């Protein structure tokens, strides 16, 4: 395979629409250390960004499933998201042919979340969940709300639901705080209760807990 194929910018861009898997049982090409950001990483010399152990392991995992009898590499396969085979091409491919091959798979499966969008949205939802665990409702709401409003989710119902679920978790955590504030007020700590509620109202945007917090605050202030 021409060594210029995988580093091609056009091909790299096309692979953002799929999950890419490189399988090779050989390690004779060796590995090298490179600097990525602040860290040194060991990478395969044949394919940047992957450890040789990983492409050997992948080969062991899938060769029995996809390769029967004698094979001549390179072979490119497209699979459905469940791993079943859609189509394959034997032999070397040019950048143009490989991009067209990827495009045919995307057409059959439908347009999913691109790699970049996936990591942005998933990162925001993970951040929201972590912030809930730390009691940081401001960060949790902001991250979950940002995920929900991400333009890429417009056509992805499952991810819209995940974002809505994350906001629901923020709301539940905030409602617990409203209860804490009401308990504090009943115990005579009106100032503490007021501070908790005011903070929640400022942090949680348009969640339903905000209306409940406003009612609780009005009650404490005797309005």
């Amino acid at each position, binding site marked *: 395979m021409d060594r210029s194929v995988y580093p091609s910018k056009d091909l790299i861009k096309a692979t953002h629409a799929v*999950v890419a898997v490189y399988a090779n049982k050989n390690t004779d090409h060796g590995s090298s250390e490179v600097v990525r950001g602040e860290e040194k990483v060991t990478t395969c010399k*044949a394919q940047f960004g992957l450890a040789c152990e990983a492409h050997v392991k992948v080969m062991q995992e899938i060769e029995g499933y996809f390769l029967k009898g004698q094979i001549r590499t390179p072979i490119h396969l497209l699979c459905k998201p469940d791993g079943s085979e859609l189509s394959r091409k034997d032999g070397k491919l040019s950048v143009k042919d490989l991009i067209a091959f990827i495009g045919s798979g995307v057409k059959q499966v439908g347009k999913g979340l691109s790699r970049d969008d996936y990591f942005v949205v998933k990162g925001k939802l993970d951040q929201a969940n972590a912030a809930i665990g730390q009691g940081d409702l401001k960060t949790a709401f902001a991250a979950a709300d940002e995920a929900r409003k991400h333009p890429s989710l417009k056509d992805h119902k499952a991810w819209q639901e995940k974002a809505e679920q994350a906001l629901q978790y923020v709301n539940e955590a905030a409602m617990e705080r409203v209860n804490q504030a009401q308990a504090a007020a009943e115990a005579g700590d009106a100032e503490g209760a007021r501070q908790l509620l005011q903070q929640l109202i400022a942090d949680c945007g348009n969640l339903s807990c905000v209306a409940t917090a406003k009612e609780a605050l009005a009650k404490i202030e005797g309005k």
Partner: protein
Amino acid sequence: MLRTILASALLAWIVPLPAFAQGKPATAPQEYVHWASSWKEALSQARERNVPILVTFHEDG
């Protein structure tokens, strides 16, 4: 002879050696294909994103 030595010294001063020749690790390319590190990871991400999996089989040599 002296001219050759001077020219070599000047060239070495002007043209920096590549990182690997200096014994330093090279810098990662800004863009590259992000390969999944296992089949399990590939399946999990493909299902979550609802995208196809591109598998490429290679051998050295």
